[in-house]
């Protein structure tokens, strides 16, 4: 349907690079899916095998890809050219991956990631992710991290009892007998929030970055 020839307007060979790229991506995806399922039995229509639907769908995707490719070569599309950037995708991905790697131990062969808990993973995710925006300011992000993390710790860890590691593993293992995990959690959350408040008050005037924070004394 979209592959009709609009023979007028004779500009370059590729009329819509976006559609051409889209078509190629679809074709590649179809080939990838067929390659992945090539060893599985397709079965017959009377007894459908595991590969039947994926391969049938992949074939249809391939047809769509070809149609899109042809239409991209022959017809201009009405989409404006997309701007691709690197900063956003890169930093946001980093932030999510770092959260995943620090929240709970994962095992890659002999390599284990640490369990640092939400108290570390949360701020890391916020601060690294925050830099994805060109308008990021460290002070704001640190404040946000120090305010939002204790909120989440108390909400998810304390009130909702969610099985999410809150404090680093070594802290959890070294607690005094008399102090329960929840108390430690609350104290940490309160300390973080306290730092956030002090940071906010002491750096209120400064707009560029944090200059006068006296958090070293807080403990």
């Amino acid at each position: 349907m979209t592959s009709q020839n609009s023979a007028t307007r004779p500009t370059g060979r590729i009329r819509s690079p976006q559609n051409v790229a889209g078509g190629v991506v679809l074709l590649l995806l179809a080939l990838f899916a067929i390659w992945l399922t090539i060893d599985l039995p397709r079965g017959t229509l009377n007894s459908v095998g595991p590969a039947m639907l994926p391969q049938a769908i992949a074939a249809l995707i391939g047809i769509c890809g070809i149609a899109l490719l042809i239409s991209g070569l022959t017809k201009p599309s009405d989409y404006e050219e997309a701007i691709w950037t690197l900063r956003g995708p890169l930093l946001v991905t980093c932030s999510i991956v770092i959260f995943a790697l620090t929240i709970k131990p994962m095992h890659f062969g002999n390599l284990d990631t640490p369990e640092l808990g939400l108290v570390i993973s949360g701020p890391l995710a916020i601060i690294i992710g925050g830099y994805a925006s060109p308008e990021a300011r460290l002070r704001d992000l640190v404040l946000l991290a120090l305010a939002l993390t204790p909120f989440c710790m108390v909400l998810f860890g304390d009130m909702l009892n969610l099985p999410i590691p809150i404090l680093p593993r070594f802290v959890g293992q070294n607690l005094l007998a008399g102090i329960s995990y929840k108390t430690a959690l609350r104290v940490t959350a309160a300390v973080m929030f306290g730092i956030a408040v002090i940071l906010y008050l002491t750096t209120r005037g400064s707009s560029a970055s944090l200059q006068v924070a006296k958090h070293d004394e807080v403990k």
Partner: protein
Amino acid sequence: MIKRRVLTAMLAVFASASFLGRAYAQSDNYPSRPVKLIVPYAAGGGTDAIARLVANGVGEKLGQSMVVENNGTAGGNVASQLAAKADPDGYTVLMANQGPMVVNPHLFESMKLDPLTAFDPVTLIARSPLVVVVSKNSPYKSFSDLMAFGKANPGKLTYGSAGNGSASHLATEMLLKMAGIQAVHVPYKGAGPALNDMLGGRGDFMITTAPSVLGLIDSGDMVPLAVTTKERVKRFNAPSVAESGYPDYVSAAWYGFVVPKGTPAAINEKLRKATIEAMGSKEIKDRLEAEGTTLVGDSPAEFASMMKAESERWKGFLATAGISIK
């Protein structure tokens, strides 16, 4: 400069938290933080309901909450792998049952873990029968009717299951094999949707866990033809499969606690005591027994030998039946 300040700020938080700690976790102050109970099924299922009920009671006895963590990925294999790799400090407990402990190692070709050596058993909590059910409009009025029809008409019967490799599927396959019957298996995702089709008359029979079908049995919409435990169960007006001509047949769902290998014996014992105490509470007892479940609460050694025997049995059966998940 800024970086250093942020770092110091973070360190301060760290220090304030770790300052609280001194001694390493020992059995006399166990537990000093919440204990995690890993359930190898998604939230909301029958196993999960029992786990949450027991966890609540055990948490009360231990004086620390017992937090349920669900992970139903890959038939529970991911959960058991996670639990096996956790520190053997008593803060990670696995809700052990038939699938992940004794069936999956022989069912999943990809399973690397041997659950029998990776875990220390704590105690078997409960044993629950599976029930052979048909719709109230079914022509089969008794278990022998059903078996007789199946034998006379190979391939005519259709049965539903809660999923490929589920207890419900395997219990049926074992029965069919013993009886020499061929029937078509229609797998579902969970017992609920499967029961719906049996109820609507699209399938002939199903073997399923007691809690999943209790409501429909009580109302008379589904009829229990037999139970899969060795003895009859008071809750159901039906004979056992074993007494109906298949004396070797037994297939019960069971639930227990295991901890990662190497957990100190004192901690294991503390956990076992708390579990058995919790099981004794009227609240838990009444609810579980109302579903036809038998509470057990045995020793680690008894639990271990029971799992070993079960594992052997399923290994043999799955190999001859040729059921596997690649």
